[in-house]
């Protein structure tokens, strides 16, 4: 407990102002922007708090004191100053933000890998170009059980394009380490690129209320080196299904799986 608190304190004092590190190339822009916001907002916050504190200490009414309050109302130069300076700050932040946004939101015409991410109540389905499908099941009685989660396998250091599709209600694809959210909305096609620089296993989760078992709509991202990924991908037969890392039996035709038409075996009934 104490160490957790200490860790937070040192985290807050570091230049990242408490923001975690991401593992993608876009992370750089997000954190630059976060830092910039910190450079402006921390001093502004301290100045305003300082002025308020000074005013209530210096000008508080003391018992027995016979000081008359000043009765001024306007001071145009000061008022103009605290209108113009914030306008300039906001313009600067907007400029940096605009630049960062163009990098983060850039969608490549030729991604190395393109994967379709289907979200449904309450699970995920990751469909690879050859029709291979990764699915999983959630343990609705024990959220500490990570064994049967669907796994999104990605190569590192490559531009991966994710096409996110909702099969029922609004969901959100969210991986904390990617510092990124994108909604899955019926009727809207959303595509975004990520380039993960650090191989590893990252937890992901639906980030938009989607019904009863929203909290259990989790998945794992397994980022492999490009060589490992190529070997893994070569081992996945077209239109095969892997449930929580365990190869399963193909159900329905390849086309039906890709169209999301054959749902047998995908929807997840609560265990137990």
């Amino acid at each position, binding site marked *: 407990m104490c160490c957790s608190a200490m860790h937070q304190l040192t985290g807050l004092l570091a230049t990242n102002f408490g923001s975690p590190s991401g593992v993608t190339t876009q992370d750089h822009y997000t954190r630059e922007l976060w830092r910039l916001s910190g450079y402006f907002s921390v001093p502004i916050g301290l100045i305003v708090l300082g002025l308020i504190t000074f005013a209530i200490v210096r000008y508080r009414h003391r018992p027995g004191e016979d000081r008359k309050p*000043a009765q001024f109302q306007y001071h145009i130069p000061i008022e103009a100053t605290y209108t113009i300076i*914030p306008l300039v700050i906001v313009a600067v932040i907007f400029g940096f933000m605009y630049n960062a*946004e163009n990098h983060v939101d850039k969608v490549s015409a030729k991604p190395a890998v393109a994967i379709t991410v289907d979200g449904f109540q309450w699970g995920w389905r990751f469909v690879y170009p050859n029709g291979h499908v990764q699915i999983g099941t959630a343990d609705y009685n024990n959220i500490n059980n990570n064994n049967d989660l669907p796994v999104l396998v990605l190569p590192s250091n490559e531009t991966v394009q994710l096409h996110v599709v909702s099969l029922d209600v609004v969901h959100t694809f969210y991986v904390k380490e990617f510092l*990124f959210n994108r909604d899955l909305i019926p009727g809207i096609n959303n595509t975004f690129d990520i380039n993960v620089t650090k191989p590893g296993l990252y937890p992901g989760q639906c980030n938009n209320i989607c*019904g009863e078992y929203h*909290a259990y709509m989790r998945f794992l991202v397994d980022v492999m080196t490009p060589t490992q990924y190529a070997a893994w991908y070569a081992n996945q037969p077209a239109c095969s299904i892997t449930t929580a890392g365990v190869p399963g039996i193909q159900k329905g035709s390849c086309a039906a799986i890709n169209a999301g038409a054959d749902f047998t075996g995908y929807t997840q009934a609560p265990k137990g």
Partner: protein
Amino acid sequence: MTILEERPQFAFEAHEASLMEIVPGPRPHGIVKFVTSTDHKQIGLNYLFTGLAGFLVAGLMALVMRTQLIVPNNHFVTENVYNEMFTIHGTLMLFVFAGPFAFAGFGNYLVPLMIGAPDMAFPRFNNLSYWLYLGGFSLLLAGFLTNNGAAQFGWFGYAPLTEAIHSPGPGADLWIVGIGLTGFSGIFTAVNIITTVFTLRAPGMVMFRMPIFVWNILVTMFLILLAFPVLTAAMALLWIDRHLGGNFYNANKGGQPILWQNLFWFFGHPEVYIIALPYFGVATEILATMSRKPVFGYKGMIAATLSIGALAMGVWAHHMYTTGAVLLPFFAAMSLLIAVPTGIKFFNWIGTMWRGTIVLNTAMLFCLGFLAMFLFGGITGVILAQPVLDFQLHNTYFVVAHFHYVLIGAVMAGFGGLYYWLPKMTGRKLSEKWGKLGFALLFIGFNLTFFPQHDLGLRGMPRRIETYNAGMGWNFLNELSSIGAYITAIGVLVNAWNIFTSWRHGEIAGDNPWDGQTLEWACSSPPPDHNFEALPPIRSERPVWDANHPDMLTKVGH
């Protein structure tokens, strides 16, 4: 300047309510008065205390949520109950408490008094507004009595989760109708108050002599007229989808679920300012009175309120950055710009305190609590206004922490308003001792609850999850947050006890306990029917101060 100096001194004292003599016979009281009264003061009190009841109920739901989240993998309540809790918590807090408490509660009670009017322009219409509002509140609660339970899709109820196939049962319908009724109530109140402000001002009360509170309520009312009908329309379309075979939000039949988000947030963001602006007004009045000074930059303050109102209509899609379906730079620029008039207000508040003689009583402490918490909520707002950072933090606990700081900041000002104006409404002051204890508990409790949630969001905890995995690094912060919620609950009880006991046994307030500046302090406490028999001359925005302190008139120029 010369006019101010040469005007005849107004000798004013408390007047007895001789208007009572015009209408002879017994006056209604108790439940009959509550049901039938068209008096703006009675209706204002009805709103204030119904709003507080909503706050207590919604607060209990928050305690259920925090108890569920205190440890990982908890099974204190089921998923569906948890989903009901956050949905109705949010809905009650926004549609029953935070908004109406200020714009209809304080608004009804104070606007006619502050502009020297005998009542609202349409008193019976006013009564109807209250009953629609109470009806809405009841229907929102009635959801819990239905077989499928209350609505379970969050207070902004994104389609298509709200469609009949995903959310069957009458709970969702009661939610739709309940919000619809509070919406109509708000629209009617807006029509009423706008008419009152434009037509019933006392002689001398020109627009630029109205208290800032009245200005803020006026701008709020225009926002209501622009925003609430859109919400009502969105709800009507949802009803048609659910019951009459419509497909407005059904993508499978050519509808657009994103339409709901646009319509809802076109209401939803102005709603934030519909909630906040009246509290800004409350805080401004308290700060000026307790500093014994005029509002610094009065006209700049009004300009800031107007620009917040205008910008508020053009920022709705900053709730939708991650949909991939909105023009990011436009909404980012508009959202960032709101920081400028909000900043002006902060510096005006500081200017109002500057070189005053500040009385640090409970009302003022709550006001300072508002300044501190709202400042922090404003800063995190600037962070979230940037789409790239919102991509990271969208729908995480960082957002939950952000808007609770904003809203609780506002509500802090509201509690300050209770300590400030209840003496006018009841004739008795609240206990300062209990008040300061209540403030300390609330301030510590709120911060302990919501400050750790910023870090929870940065650590990736999504909002509205019923439970969480023990290995995510969220356990300690959730524990802290839940302990904060329990402290907050004790603080609420202390304040409720203070209001309850002071109502009958509090120190007699007198007409003008705080050396107030605006017209409500010119009549007795509580004010008689139809408010005023005589008014002090209105030659500035603080006529009562001018009459009481002819030696301390506002200094012109600088």
